[in-house]
Structure formats: structure tokens, C-alpha cells
């Protein structure tokens, strides 16, 4: 779960990381308390807001109100701007980069630092980035020395950077972050090291121990929200075949097979492992509201038994009323029972994956 910049900064402040003074506004009317000159920053989760005009500057209250109004009416890469952060304009001397991130390859937390801040880290040459695999027992002093030399800082600012990184690491672990990034990390003319922009992604699987984030749920569409509540992985794509499968790998393979056969998936629903036919019924209701041209059901039964899925489909057809053609491919545990159930409601199912996929593609174009 990505946090908005203002939420990320609140969290950083809680851990003692210096941030610019700022005010959050949901309308141009509530900008009081801002300090001038001010930066008006769109609060969106998509990247590249600066280039899209989502950051503007103002020297007076009237200007700030006008800029806030402009930004609050914007939609950036499909995301409606709902609030702006008005922040004191820092007197920037240098822009640096600092982050902690989960690293799959080394199965550890990685600290990344660069003297080239203020640009996307992907665009910084590899040799200009210092990477440290954080020891399993946490932040250690040598990391501060690496920061000081990477950033080219003197003693005082080196100490500030070290303290800031130590706090950022504490936050990363305590709040179950996947990413905690400060870009740019600014050195001001008066010699202060400040987190000018912040990005935090919280590990979704940890939310059971962070109930306070429940209000920060990403901006979901109503269908995505429903899927989330039912614990169904739901992804909207740009084709017209609705895919329901069980398991992430099988679902992805199903999309690939459809694509190779000239079709294109519009929505994908991953049932995951379930032994509850009601979950299947809810998935079909969800799929119905997503309006694909055809529903392709691809099940390989294991922990999710085929007859469980078939019963759920039967229930959906009889109670929800599915007015979209269904092409089914059923294999695995109890597939013979499942095929009988589906036959009873007029759905012919196949065992052959490729044959079924082709049938779905034909149904989608006709």
C-alpha cells in the first residue's frame, strides 16, 4: 500500500526525521497556516506529478489559493487530485537520494544512497549509487560513514545524515515498509539536512499489526474495493475476456494463452485457494459487473476443488443471473462431478486448455 506524501511525512516526523513545515488542504479555502514562499504539491500516488504540473510555487496567500485551486482541479495520469500539501520553500543547496528497500535477491533490507538526488533513481548510473545490505541485526555506524562519503558531507551534516538514516531504518522495520524513500534529501543553505519529498510503501501482508493504516487504503474503484473485501485478486486490463482462474501463476498463464491465440483479457480474477462456493458466486457477480464479452473459467483443482467452483457457478447463474456467456475448462480434484454440475446449467466444459482458450477467443469476437 502506497502512502500519500503527507502521510509519509507524518510518519517520518514521528520517527524524528526533519521534514519541511507544511499544511494539508482539501480545498483552496483551507490553506491558512502556510508559510511563504510556498510550494503547492498535488497529493497523488502516481509518479511524475512535477512534470504533469502538479507542483507550483506561490509567494502570497492569494497566489497560493489560485495555485491550489488549479491543482485541485487536475487529474494526473488518471488519478484525481483530492488534496494539496503547501510546504515552506526550502533554500536548497544540494539534492541527495536516500532509501531503504526490501531486496528479494539478497533476502535483506538494502540501503541505497546517491549524491545525485532530485531525479528518478532509475536514471542515476549504477556506479553513482552506494548500496549496503543492512546487517540482520539492524543499522550500524559504518553505514553513516558510507553516507557521509557518498554524499560528500562535512562532519556536522554527516552526523545529521547518519541520524536521519538511522531513524528511517527504525521506521522501515517498525512500520513494515517495503520502500521508504527520500528523494530529494535536501541540504539547505543554512546547513540543515531535510526530507523534502517522501515515498513510503507499506507491506500489505503486515496490515493486521497496523490497524491505523486502514484509513489509508489506496484509491480503489468500487469493483476493486469489493474484490479486496472478498480476498479475490482482481486486476483490470484492456481486453474483453473476463478470466477467472485459481492461483496467480495459472491466471497469468491463462492470459498468455489467450494472447497467443489472438484474444485479450479485460479483467482477471484469481480465486486463490478456497473451499467456499460462495466466494466463487461473489467472483462471478463481480465479473458480471465488469461487463466482459465472455467469461473464461480456468480451474485446476487442488486445494480449491473443482466441484466447489462448479457449485458456486451454479449458484451465481441461478441467483445472480449471469447474462454473459461462460466458457469453462476444468481439471483436477473432483473434475468429473464439476462437469456434471455445469452440464446441468447448460455449460459445456472442456479439459483441454488450448481448445477452451480458442473457444473463449471466438466467443469474444463474435
Amino acid at each position, binding site marked *: 500500500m502506497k502512502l500519500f506524501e503527507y502521510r509519509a511525512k507524518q510518519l517520518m516526523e514521528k520517527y524524528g526525521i526533519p521534514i519541511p513545515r507544511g499544511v494539508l488542504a482539501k480545498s483552496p479555502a483551507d490553506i491558512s497556516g502556510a508559510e511563504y514562499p510556498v510550494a503547492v504539491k498535488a497529493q497523488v500516488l502516481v509518479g511524475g506529478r512535477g512534470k504533469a504540473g502538479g507542483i507550483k510555487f506561490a509567494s502570497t496567500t492569494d497566489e497560493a489559493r489560485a495555485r491550489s485551486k488549479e491543482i485541485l482541479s487536475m487529474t494526473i495520469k488518471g488519478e484525481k487530485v483530492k488534496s494539496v500539501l503547501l510546504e515552506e520553500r526550502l533554500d536548497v543547496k544540494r539534492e541527495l537520494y536516500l532509501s531503504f528497500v526490501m531486496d528479494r535477491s539478497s533476502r535483506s533490507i538494502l540501503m541505497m544512497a546517491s549524491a545525485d538526488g532530485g531525479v528518478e533513481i532509475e536514471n542515476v548510473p549504477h556506479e553513482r549509487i552506494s548500496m549496503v545490505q543492512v546487517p540482520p541485526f539492524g543499522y550500524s555506524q559504518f553505514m553513516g560513514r558510507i553516507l557521509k562519503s557518498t554524499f560528500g558531507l562535512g562532519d556536522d551534516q554527516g552526523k545529521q545524515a547518519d541520524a536521519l538514516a538511522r531513524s528511517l531504518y527504525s521506521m522501515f522495520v517498525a512500520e513494515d515498509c517495503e520502500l521508504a524513500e527520500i528523494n530529494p534529501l535536501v541540504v539547505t543553505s543554512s546547513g540543515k539536512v531535510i526530507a523534502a519529498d517522501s515515498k513510503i510503501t507499506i507491506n500489505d*501482508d503486515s496490515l493486521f499489526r497496523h490497524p491505523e493504516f486502514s484509513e489509508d487504503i489506496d484509491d480503489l474503484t468500487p469493483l476493486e474495493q469489493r474484490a479486496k473485501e472478498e480476498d479475490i485478486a482482481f*486486476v483490470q*486490463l484492456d481486453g474483453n475476456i473476463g478470466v477467472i482462474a485459481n492461483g496467480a*501463476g*495459472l491466471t*497469468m498463464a491463462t492470459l*498468455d494463452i*489467450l494472447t*497467443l491465440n489472438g484474444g485479450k483479457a479485460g479483467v482477471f480474477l484469481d480465486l486463490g485457494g478456497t473451499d467456499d462456493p460462495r466466494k466463487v458466486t461473489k467472483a462471478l457477480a463481480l465479473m458480471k459487473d465488469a461487463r466482459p464479452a465472455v467469461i473464461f473459467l480456468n480451474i485446476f483443482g487442488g486445494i480449491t476443488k473443482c466441484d466447489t467452483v462448479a457449485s458456486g457457478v451454479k449458484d451465481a447463474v441461478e441467483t445472480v443471473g449471469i447474462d454473459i456467456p461462460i466458457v469453462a475448462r476444468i481439471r*483436477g480434484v473432483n473434475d468429473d462431478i464439476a462437469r456434471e454440475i455445469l452440464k446441468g446449467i447448460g455449460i459445456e466444459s472442456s479439459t483441454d486448455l488450448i481448445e477452451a482458450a480458442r473457444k473463449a477467443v471466438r466467443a469474444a469476437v463474435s
Partner: protein
Amino acid sequence: MAIMVDGSTKVIVQGITGHQGQFHAKSMREFGTKVVGGVTPGKGGGDVDGIPVFDTVKEAAEQTGANTTCIFVPARFARDAVFEAVNAGLGLVVVITEHIPFLDAMQFVSYAKLKGSTVIGPNCPGVTSPSFGKVGIMPSKMFAKGDVGVISRSGTLTYEIVNALSENGIGQTTCVGIGGDPIIGTNFVEALARFEEDSGTKRIVMVGEIGGTAEEEAADFIREHVTKPVYAYIAGRSAPPGKRMGHAGAIISRGRGTAESKIKALEGAGVSVAALPTDIPALVKKG
């Protein structure tokens, strides 16, 4: 022979009194696995279908001689359950539980390495050696005995491929579902190394997917260290960047982890890559 699960494997099930634990403990036993006990704190002294239940892993291990555990406990208790198993000296720890916070996984993987235990998963279907037994939740019917080693990041997709192999007369030594999470105990490289050493395994099938760089690292390892033929399928060729495709690990982010990059790396290392999962048996037959 086989890897990880063989004739000496004796399994306990952590979380045996839960719905999944109970069902799969029986299914493992029916498959021929030696399921010697179960653990549920507070329920020690009872039994599940004749399988004795203990309060602690330590007691279970001491009294049954178990060397392997299969963990079904809920995500919030999973880290503790793995720690307990590793502390008790179990050599193979299979973690079925999904949605475990990655920091918890990092900690138990690290503790296991310290103590010399092998962790499979989390969020995985387990390990099955058709000649000896299964530890996990893979459907029993689809296997056949043979000389192919299978390594996969996915669950049901593994079933699809193993089923297709068996139907085409291609049996397996061991099928390892390494799990779809970003932080896992055993990765492709470690599983490949085991199959390379195993005399019974003549060929290796690996099933990857988008996200991360594990397949690229596997390709580097294969080029240097694997002498046996390797066949692969990579799921997610048609997945758009930035979308999380079900598995927490399956996301193309920052231009990394695409199917193209993985396929190119594997082909560069001499691996035959199938366009479709159903093409795998034909590729293996062709040799």
C-alpha cells in the same frame, strides 16, 4: 533418488487441528508419507485420525523422530512457528501459509540459515517426491515416478505442468513449489543445485513468472554449474507493467522482471523455453 523428501522423511504438521492442517495431514499420509505427529499449542495429548498431537515442536520431534515439518498456522503466528521448528532442529521446514509479512519471512529464513535448516516457501504448495511422499498440499493424483526434477514459483500452474508431464509418460523425482512471495527460503538457484547433485534426476523443468530477478540469477547459475538439460516456462508474458498479478512477487516494476528479460537470459544459458505451459512435455521429449 529424490531431493528434500525421501525414504527418511518423517513429517509433523504444525497447525494440525485446523481445517487445512487436518485435511492435508490425512492426504499426505494417504500418499504414503510418514506423518508421525502434529503440533497445536494447547491441544497436546489428543490426536487427529490417529496422528498424535503435541503442544510443542520440541516434544513432537523428540518423541517421534521427525525431521520435517509442514506449517499451516495463520500468518500472524507463522514466524513463531518457523522459529520453533528451526530451534527444534528440523532440517526441512515447508511453509504453506500465505500473506506472511516479508520482514517475518526475512527473519525466519535468516534464523534457518544460521541453524542449517532448509525453508521452502512461504506461500508455497510444498515438496513432493512421487517415490517417497509429499509434504504440502499438491493434489496426489497427478504425479508419476521418473527422472525429471520440477521447480516452480507457482502452485496451480505447477499442477498443470506436472499433470501434463505425467500424462505424457514423463515422471518426476521431486517437484518443489518454492513459493510466490518476494522473500522465500529456497530460491531457484538453491533448488537447481540440489537437482544437479541428485543422481536420480536427469532433467530439470523450471516454472517461473514475472517479477524480481530470480530467473535471471538462475540462468547465470545454470550456465556455470548445471550440466543437466533444463526446460522452462515463464508466466506473465502478457502482463502489463505496474500491475500486481496476484502473487505479491509478480509485478513488473521499474522496468525489471519482465518475461522477455527472463526468457532471453534462460535461452542464453542454453535452456529450452516453452511458449505455453502445455508445450513443456513435447520439449522434454525432444530432449
